[in-house]
Structures are given as structure tokens and as C-alpha cells.
């Protein structure tokens, strides 16, 4: 029964990874931008929330403020910097966002030191529901998983049903043709990045409540997010959740089988196996005219 417990934990952990992965998949889908600062931007959001909490604001308000700030940061960052890196050379945004990641990590080190930090959710993070005698569900991981499902459904609905979502998809299909329809690509890209950083802020804060974090935590979560996106298949948000769940399962089951140090390695090995046999992921959706 212990294995069932561990598997349930792994599945729920996948929800957290999916929260980090949604925004990464979104900006790659809309503008083919690989954002290497994505994980660090999520951790930045956690530190912003921490800053508000320290100044006496309650956690829910602090989280909301942090998310709104990151939405604004996303828009400004895209229009003021990242738009200029897009174009013929795919490596430019990678180099620039890599630099950005280093800047964010070091700025956080300066301001908050390398100490482990935590966000306290008032006991929510440690309470659990007993499904049966042996199987217990953590309330907080369950909430995070539900949040991931709701967020994916919301973003998917936005992409499918709204004018903005159609603009994202049209721009992704053919940037120049979209411009001929009256779309300002620079604005569309900035909206996509704003949405992306809004979602990764949620991920960063969710992570910070779940476990301790420090200024370097972003890089790990960037890798997990990449693995989730690639296993799920580019262009599919639900696939991203599946990728997150596979990764979470591999990590927790691996840790259970071989000892706690082996979990992360097992996750990466499973990722490599998926990459070898399904290089385009489980739900890849690419369309060419």
C-alpha cells in the first residue's frame, strides 16, 4: 500500500510541474521563444510574494499582488527586450534569456541571501485526508493539482474561444499573415508573455508554499518544466500535465525504490526513454498548410 501512497504523491507532484510548464509551452508555441529564464521568473514571483508577506501582507493578497506584478513584468519584458531578440536567428533569445536567468538569480542572492526561505500557508501545507487506512492524500498537493487542471482548462478555453486566443494561434501559424489581418505582433507576443509569467508566478508561489526555496531553485524547475512539455508534446497543454505527472511519478517511485537520492535521476532517465521512443511527445499537435 505504501507504493500506492507514493504513486499518488507522484501524480499530484505532476500538477506542480505542469504549473511551471504551461507558460513555457505557451510562449514557445506562440513565438518559438525558448525562455531559459522561465524557472527563475517563477522563483522571482515567490520572492516577491515573500517580500510582501514580510512587510505584513497576508499570503493570499501577497500571492495575488505577485502574480499581477509578474503579468506586468511579462508584458514589459517582451516589448522592451525579448521582441528585439526574435527574428532570423533562433539562438539569440536563448542567449538573452540565459543572461536574464543569471541576472535574476544574482539579484535575488543580493537581496535575500542564499538562505532557504519558506512561505507559510497556516498549516494547509501539512494537513492530509485519509482515503483509506494506508492511503493519505496531502490537502495542499491535491489543491495544487486541481489548480493546475483549472488553469490548463482556462488557458485552453482562452486559446480556443477568445479573440486573443485566436490571435495567438494565428500568429503562431503565420506571423506575417497575422500582421496582414491587423495584428500587431509585438503586442500579441507581449500578451502571450504576460500570460506565461502570470502562470509561472502561480507555479513559483505554489512551489514556495510546498517546500523551501532559494534563489537557485529556478533552474531545476526549468528542467522539469522542459521535460514535462517535451514528454507531453509541443502545442498541447493537457499533454504538458501528462508529462508533469509522468515526471512526478518517475521521481517519487524512483526515490521509493532506490532511495531518496535517486528520484531526480529516475525522472531524467524516464524522460530520456520517452524522448528516444516518442521524440515528439504523447500529444504533439503540429499542423502545416
Amino acid at each position, binding site marked *: 500500500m505504501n507504493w500506492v501512497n507514493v504513486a499518488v504523491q507522484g501524480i499530484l507532484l505532476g500538477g506542480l510541474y505542469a504549473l511551471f510548464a504551461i507558460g513555457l509551452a505557451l510562449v514557445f508555441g506562440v513565438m518559438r521563444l525558448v525562455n531559459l529564464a522561465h524557472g527563475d521568473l517563477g522563483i522571482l514571483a515567490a520572492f516577491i510574494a515573500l517580500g510582501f508577506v514580510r512587510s505584513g501582507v497576508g499570503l493570499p493578497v501577497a500571492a495575488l499582488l505577485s502574480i499581477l506584478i509578474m503579468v506586468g513584468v511579462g508584458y514589459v519584458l517582451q516589448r522592451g527586450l525579448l521582441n528585439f531578440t526574435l527574428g532570423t536567428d533562433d539562438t539569440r533569445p536563448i542567449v538573452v534569456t540565459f543572461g536574464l536567468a543569471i541576472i535574476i538569480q544574482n539579484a535575488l542572492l543580493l537581496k535575500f541571501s542564499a538562505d532557504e526561505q519558506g512561505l507559510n500557508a497556516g498549516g494547509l501545507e501539512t494537513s492530509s485526508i485519509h482515503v483509506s487506512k494506508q492511503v493519505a492524500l496531502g490537502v495542499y498537493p491535491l489543491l495544487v493539482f486541481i489548480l493546475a487542471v483549472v488553469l490548463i482548462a482556462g488557458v485552453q478555453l482562452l486559446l480556443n474561444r477568445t*479573440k486573443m486566443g*485566436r*490571435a495567438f*494561434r*494565428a500568429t*503562431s*501559424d*503565420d506571423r*506575417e*499573415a*497575422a*500582421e*496582414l*489581418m*491587423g*495584428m*500587431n*505582433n509585438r503586442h500579441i507576443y507581449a500578451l502571450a508573455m504576460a500570460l506565461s509569467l502570470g502562470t509561472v508566478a502561480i507555479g513559483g508561489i505554489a512551489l514556495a508554499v510546498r517546500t523551501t526555496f532559494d534563489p537557485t531553485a529556478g533552474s531545476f524547475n526549468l528542467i522539469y518544466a522542459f521535460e514535462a512539455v517535451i514528454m507531453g508534446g509541443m502545442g498541447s497543454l493537457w499533454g504538458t500535465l501528462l508529462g508533469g505527472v509522468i515526471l512526478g511519478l518517475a521521481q517519487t517511485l524512483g526515490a521509493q525504490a532506490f532511495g531518496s537520492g535517486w528520484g531526480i535521476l529516475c525522472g531524467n532517465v524516464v524522460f530520456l526513454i520517452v524522448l528516444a521512443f516518442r521524440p515528439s511527445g504523447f500529444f504533439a*499537435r503540429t*499542423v*502545416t*498548410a
Partner: protein
Amino acid sequence: MSFLELQDVSVFYGDFQALFTVSLSVEEGQTFAVIGANGAGKSTMLRTIAGLLRPRSGQILFEGEPIDHVSAHKRVGMGISMVPEGRRVFASLTVNENLQVGAYGGRKGDWTIESVYELFPLLKPLAKRQAASLSGGEQQALAIGRALMSNPRLVLLDEVSLGLAPVVIKRIYEVMVELPARGTTILVVEQDVQHVLTVADHVACFLEGRISLQGEPSELKSDEITAAYFGM
């Protein structure tokens, strides 16, 4: 004052000059045809009018106002809409969504998804299909319908009949007569010279980045056109 006027427009791709001080005027309600061999600069001119390329010198006037500083996405709102070469429909979007996107930055007006389906009845049963799954002719009809959704006053058509089934080409040529009757001006680039001369009010022939001949189709003799087309 002409509806659309190009004054000494020169366009470059890097060091390569594609248009040499091209001047022409298009009147409102006209079907203005641009013919010429491959690489003569026809598409370059359309892309410059749409705002995708900027002239290095000269200017473009739309209803007497210079529009060179206006970016492509804003020209749609002024009533300039382009059907690009190769159709360029949004492949992952449905037919309906393509038309919805066509109205994104456009003007208010009479065109709706329904009226586009009346213009091209072949599209209606395909409404929920992904544009990628359409035939070339269906995609071209969709590309024209999508351009009309912005309620344009000037439609730029680039190579609209290239490689399509004759039945679709026939319908597109009918539309090229119906649109000016509704007051929409058409500037069309075509390879099929004989065919386009049957619908055009005015024709300009491009040769190596310059206009080698222009006038009303009835005034031009076919050997004149051949000479202007091939530069002989």
C-alpha cells in the same frame, strides 16, 4: 487626387534594388491589373503597399495622405487588405476561425462570415474544417474571404489563380467583377495575362522593377504587351 498613388517608389532587399522609381495611380472602384514576368517586382510592389516592405525613396499616398510611416497592421484598419501569394491561410485554425481572425483589426462594414459564405458557397460546408485540410482552391477562396472580413476599400490580390482548378479560377474572376461593383477597388497581380485583361479596367506591365507599359486593356495591342512583358 487618386485613390492610391505611388510616387517614384524605390524598394530594396538589402543591396538588391527590386523597384526603380515606380509611379502609378489607381482610381476608386477600378480593377487594376499588374502583369509581368517572374521577378519583375509585382509582388514587391503589393507588399510595399500593404506595409510589409518600406520604400527607400518615394512615397505612397492613400486618398491623398502619405502612409509610409503607417505599419502594416494599421493599414488594415485604413481599409487596405492583402491576399498574400501562396494563400497563407492559418493552417491550424478552422475555416470559421480564419474568417473571424480576418475581422481582427479591420473596419466596420457589411462583410460577415455569412456574406463571405454567400460569395464563396464552397466554403460553407467546410466551416468547421481545419484550413490545412482544404484544397488549394478552397484555401484561395478562404484567403480572399478572410481579406474581405476587414471590410477593405482596397484589396491587393497576389497571384490568385496560380495552380488552381479552373472552376475555382472562374469563381475568383467573377468575384473580381462583383467587388468593384460594390465599390471595392482591386489591385491584382496575375500571371494569366489573357484572362486578367478581360476583367481589368487598367493594366500595368512590370519589367525588371520598372513599369514598361500601362493603359486600358482596349487601348493596348497584344504585340505591345508581349514586347513590354518580355522586354523585346
